């Protein structure tokens, strides 16, 4: 089944408390030189049938209404998983 991957990130102007917590923990584990961390979400959607332009458009709408909240988040990428041919 073809797979569509949706990436959602907090808007740049929104403080990301989770990313800040991760950034603060990294040096404690000895990982130096990382200036900042922002944490987002990755959704993997398995699609029944072919991923047509129409299907992609409807997935974009789903990404912008349910998978993300446009007040605080951006849908930064929607990509068709290239590994689908192997399935």
């Amino acid at each position, binding site marked *: 089944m073809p797979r569509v991957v949706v990436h959602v990130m907090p808007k740049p102007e*929104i*403080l990301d*408390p989770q990313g800040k917590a991760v950034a603060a923990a990294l040096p404690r584990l000895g990982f130096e030189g990382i200036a900042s961390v922002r944490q987002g979400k990755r959704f993997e959607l398995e699609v029944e049938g072919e991923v047509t332009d129409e299907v992609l458009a409807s997935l974009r709408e789903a990404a912008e209404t349910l998978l993300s*909240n446009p*007040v*605080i988040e951006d849908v930064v990428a929607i990509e068709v998983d290239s590994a689908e041919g192997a399935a």
Partner: protein
Amino acid sequence: MRIGVVTFPGTLDDRDALRAVRLAGADPVALWHGEDDLQDVEAIVLPGGFSYGDYLRAGAISRFAPVMDKVVDAAKGGMPVLGICNGFQILCETHLLPGAMIKNAHRAFLCRDQPLTVENNRTAWTTGYETGQVIRIPLKNQDGQYVADERTLAELEAEGRIVFRYAAGATHGPAGFESNPNGSRHDIAGITNAEGNVVGLMPHPEHAVEAGFGPDQPGEGTRSGTDGLAMFTSVLRSMVG
């Protein structure tokens, strides 16, 4: 007067909200998220909790519950709707109220009795307060930091739609968060829509409605606080009036 309280999977404070409605002198009506029937209620409370485990985003999945279409229609028709904590998050996700809640800036769950300044006593839910009055009701959340873009914040300020602001005087909390408990923009604890019938706030009025079971009132007594009750009596008065 019949006031409905909606229960979603993971709602925690529906019983307390029903009890608050009863103590205010109205008839509490339990509403179920999966039914699109408002049972002839005249006002609605969306209570607190962790509906759907806060999966995806707090309130994001509850927004699409069958009952919510009816709640949104009723709210747009002028019915008083109060969203408390998770209920406030749901109202933001439905876009009945602007903005959104993200994780507390100090990243910890915080539970304390929180002083609030009443900024607007003209909404359906706040006529029983004086403007400028400081009330004390419990606050308990992880995702309580109110955010909105600068234009929205300016609009809320200009139109007097900030209903409650966090105030100093809480008993405890992380350093730097003595007054504002979570980093909310403009110290916002609660807001209203342009019409004043829809109000959302993060703190919990339904936990401060009966002496002996409320927050401590410094100088007055332990658990004696009942500052939340006026929110429920206000809506009764606004409907009768």
